Structures are given as C-alpha cells and as structure tokens.
C-alpha cells in the first residue's frame, strides 16, 4: 500500500495524468463547443477513431508527421460536415447521426486498414510518424514541476492551449456570443437575425477539428501505430467530462483532469489485492457519481433562482 501511495504522489504519476487527460480533454472541448450551440455530438468516439487512422496512413504516405496531422484534421472536418448536413439539412436527430458515425467507424476503419495494410489488427507494416515531444526551455529546468510539465507531446500542449483558445472564442468574440445565444434560445437568436444553421455548422466543424486532434494524439503521440478500436471509449468518457464541466472550458479542463487521474489511479491500483474488474470500473463509476452530484447541484441552483424570482 505504501508503495502505491508513494507512486501516486510522484512526479511521474502526475506526468501520466496529463498524458491520459490529453485525448479526453480535446474530445471534451469538442463536445463543449457543440453543446454551447445546442447540439449534442456523440459521434466523437467515431471521429477520433477515423482521424487516428487517417493520420497514420497520411504520415506514412507523405513521410511527414505534420501532413499526417493535417489529414487527420481534414478527416475530422469532413465528419463534422457530414454530421451537420445530416442533422441540419436532412433533419436527422443529431444523436442518431452520432451513433451512426460510431457504428460506422469501428467497422469502417478495419475495412480501410485491411484494404491498405492487409492487416486487421494494427498498422505495424506502415512506417508512420509521430508528433514530436517538446521540452519547455525554462520550466523544464525547475526540479519537480519541470518533470511534470515538460517533455510532453506537442499535441498535449495544443490540447491545453485549446482550453484557452475556446475560452477566448466563446467569451471574447462576436461568434462566441452568437454561439451562446443559439445554444440558450435558438428562436430568440433567429429573431435577432442570427443564422442558427450557419452557427451550428461552424461549431460542428470546430468540434471535428478538436476531436480529430484527439484522435491523432492516440495514434501519433500516445502510441505510434494505429490499432483497431484504439480509442476504446475515450470519446464517451469525454461526453461525461463535458457533462460535469459546468459548461466552461476551464471547468472541462478540471473534469478532464479528474478523469485522467482516475484512469492513472486505476492503472496503478492493479497491483493491489482487489479484483481487477473493480479497478477497471473506477473511471466509469466515478463518472456516474460525478454526473449525479453535478445534476443535484444544478437543480438546487435552478430552484434557488426560481425562489428568488
């Protein structure tokens, strides 16, 4: 037990928390931006998986990790557009579109992988590239903090930078204002001349970009290969993180970090004398508890507002 406590309070544990948080954070931000415009994107899991594959294939084809990332992002944008067209033009329920994308991604990536590599499991036969890890000059030299914050993958820094960028977008730009108005009351937004459909198109594209970076991180940062179903539910966890994140980028960073920590904890607790199944349950059980707590708090708040009125 002492050994476990020692591990949890070590720098390498906190480093791994950040590493584990990255894909969840990116996908949760992707969920946030659409949610603020009144659209629920549950296709994140599938978009991440498709982008993960696209990045690997493109980086191997063009011998450039950067072009790989670009292709991953393009894939994300295309899926964002498909979702937007299906939901906004064809008026399909967005949740169903998301489910369709997830169902398609799992089999579709294997189909494509098999067509390209003749392999159904992973892309070992492709010489794909990874995004570089970055040592931050000054911070990297600070004793403990440096070893926690420096040396992560470039995409990890992009993820945390995105928190700031999304905050900036939502609260400091006219577009952000429109997004929030559309989310709160689409009818009112329409009446003041905001093109609701256009705004929702935009958020789904941004969402696709963020999710695709999360997907690229899985196959070109975290790992250096694509393997089937490698996103493994992180897109769903991100939805939960978004639900608990109080609707703000900073809140979502907090909830994503909690999930990263829960995941890291589950990883380290396997050495204890607990059936492994219960340890594996931790992140999911935590989500539900968190969801309840958050919902209860929100309801109380709403009631209070109701009374004061």
């Amino acid at each position: 037990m002492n050994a476990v406590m020692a591990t949890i309070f070590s720098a390498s544990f906190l480093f791994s928390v950040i590493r584990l948080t990255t894909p969840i954070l990116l996908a949760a931000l992707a969920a946030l931006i659409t949610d603020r415009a009144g659209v629920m994107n549950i296709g994140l899991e599938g978009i991440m998986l498709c982008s993960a594959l696209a990045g690997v294939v493109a980086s191997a084809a063009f011998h450039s990790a950067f072009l790989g990332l670009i292709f991953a992002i393009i894939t994300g944008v295309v899926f964002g557009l498909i979702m937007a067209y299906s939901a906004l033009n064809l008026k399909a329920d967005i949740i169903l579109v998301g489910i369709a994308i997830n169902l398609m991604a799992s089999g579709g990536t294997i189909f494509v992988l098999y067509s390209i590599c003749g392999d159904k499991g992973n892309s070992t036969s492709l010489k794909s590239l990874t995004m570089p890890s970055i040592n931050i000059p000054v911070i990297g030299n600070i004793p403990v903090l440096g070893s926690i914050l420096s040396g992560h993958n470039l995409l990890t820094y992009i993820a945390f930078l995105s928190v700031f960028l999304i905050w900036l977008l939502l609260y400091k730009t006219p577009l952000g204002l429109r997004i929030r108005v559309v989310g709160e009351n689409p009818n009112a937004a329409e009446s003041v001349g905001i093109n609701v459909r256009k705004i929702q198109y935009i958020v789904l594209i941004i969402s696709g970009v963020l999710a695709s970076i999360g997907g690229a991180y899985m196959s070109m940062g975290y790992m250096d290969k694509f393997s089937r179903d490698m996103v493994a539910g992180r897109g769903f966890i991100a939805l939960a993180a978004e639900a608990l994140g109080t609707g703000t980028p900073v809140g979502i960073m907090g909830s994503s970090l909690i999930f990263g920590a829960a995941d890291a904890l589950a990883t380290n607790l396997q050495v204890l004398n607990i059936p492994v199944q219960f340890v594996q349950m931790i992140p999911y059980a935590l989500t539900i508890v968190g969801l309840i707590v958050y919902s209860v708090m929100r309801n109380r708040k709403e009631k209070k507002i109701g009374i004061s009125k």
Partner: protein
Amino acid sequence: MKIGKRLLSALLIAAMSLTFALTGCSSQEAKSEEPAGSTSQSGSAASGKKLNVAILLNGTLGDKAFFDSAANGAKMMESELGCTTKVIEMTADETKWVPALTDASENPDYDIIIVGTWQMSEKLAQIAAQYPDKKYIIFDSSVDYTDGKCSNVYSIEYKQNECSFLAGVAGALTSKTGKLGFVGGMENTVINDFLMGYIQGAKAVNPNIKILISYVGNFTDTAHAKELTLAQINQGADVIFQVASNAGLGVIDGCAAKGKYVIGVDSDQALAFQSSDPAKAQSILTSALKRVDISITKAVKEAQAGTLKYGQSESLGLADDCVGLGTYNKNVTKDVQDKVAEYAEKIKSGSIKVDSAFGKSTSEIEAARKSVRP
C-alpha cells in the same frame, strides 16, 4: 419530378448491375471451377495426394502472434508440402463459428479443416460427429475423446507454461531491480497458464523475485496497455512479459520508450519489428513462442503421409520444438542463455514439472499471484 427520375434511374442501374453481377459471375465461377477440379484430380492420381486445407480462425489476423502464426503455417504447408490452403477469419463473434465450421465441413474441396483454441473444442466435437468423413485438426486445445468420440479429430495442445517458465528464468536473471512485470490482455485460462509458468520460472532462479501483474481488460486498447506498462516501470519493474495480443504493442512501446526490456509472445516479435521499427526490436529481450505454424504443418505432413493419429490428443512442448524462446537480444549474456538451456533440459527430461492454470480455481491462481506480489 427531376429528383424522382434521377433516383429511379439510379435504382434501375443498381438493379441492372446486380442482376448482371449475379448472372455474370455464375458463369465465371463455372469456368474457373472446372479446371481447378480437374487438376486436383489428376494431381492426386499422379503424385501422393496434395491436401486442400482450410484453417478457420476464431479471431482476426493481425495480432502479430497467435493467429498470424497459424496463417504462417498455411504458407509453410503450401511451400513445403504443396498443399492448397485457405485461411478463414471467423472473427471474435462466437455465434459465427458454428456456421463457418459447418460451411467448411460441407465444402467437398477441403480435405482437412483446422481450428484452434479452447472455445472451439466443444463446437468441433459436435460438428465432427456430423461429418465423420471429414478430417479435423484442432490446435491449442483438445476435444473430448471419451467413449470413442471424435475419431476424425487430431488435437494439438501446447505447454505454454513451459516456454513462459523459461521466459521467467531469462527475465529474473536479467532484472537488476528484482522486480518483473506481467501484462495480460484479459484474465483467461491460457493467459493465466502463461503466468503460472512465468512465476515458477522466475522463482526458480530468484526465490525473492517480485512480479507486478496487470490485465488490460481487452485485447485492443494499446494505449491502456502502454499506461499499465509505464506504471509497472515506475514501480520498479525492468523486464515485462506481455501476453496481450494486439494490445501488447502498447507494452512494447512503453518498454522501448523507457529503455526497459519486454518479453514478446507467441511469435518472434523481435523479428517482426526488425525491419519496420529497429528501435523496438532492440527492447525485446526474447519471445515466448507457441509455434502454431510448425505444429500444424507437422500434423498436415503426417496426414499427407497417412500417419497422423486421428482420434488422439498430443501435448506438444519444449521436447517437440513447438514451444520455446525466440531470438535473444544481443545484450543477453551467454551465462543467462546457458542457464535457460539448462532449465529447458530439466523440463524436457521431466525433472521439473511446470505449474499449469488448467484445472485451477480462481482462488488458487490468486494465491500464486499473491506469492510474488511486492
């Protein structure tokens, strides 16, 4: 109405191309089948019968291990024995296995049908009884032969605990920290059989050895496997044995990133990475091999000669070259290799009996795990 017309014509084209496809390919099929049939007949008349073998995998290719090794067996049969082979992936969906097996059994082209793993044994026993004229081989498991059943089935079992014993010996001798790691895909009996041998082997050379044991929970989440590996390394493990199929790539990746050793599984993983990723090949200490390819080729060779013992099960281990360790990392000293060879001899001669997970309850396995927990 424009859209309607366009749609209608699209549908018409689809329908036409479909009917064309159906009629077109039935004629093609007939053409292609005839010469194939005639050659096989003349072939069997001239030289000893060249067998047509179907290998049905209850999983998918690409694990760089178990199933890929079986597919490699198909290649060996083609090149060494002149067989015709077809590898069929039945995928991990259990409800598809019986249909696929029945399908193959009813196909008159196949002389021998090969399946593998414990999950197939009861299903094979049922179907083999319905097609007494077909011949079957099952690897990594045995069918139930009591009451003279399954006289048309030959079973191959592997003593994977023997090769993992040697992996434990090599790992414990290499480790500087006295802590080893074990990352399994899911808890199941074969994975735990690997674990039993590994624990026993490691303890044989270092009674105080500690082993960190983790399970990914599936065979696909490479990222989680990597995370488990990094956690084990943080807790002091410096040699990690991975038995996690596809997810095992994450273990190899994690060890390569931290400069620790990993022991591969099923096929020689150092060779698999040699050309595509030499850095990873460097971090592989050795691999615990289950030579599915050698064993099924051997069986088919015997079948071709007419000496294969159908209606029996054989347990193949170190003594038969069907399990063992793969190529060593160049940093493994001769002393270590000699020690491993020494233990291999002891196992072959029967003076060491290796622990198995088969027939053990969950709590007995838990006790073994406890004995090496740090």
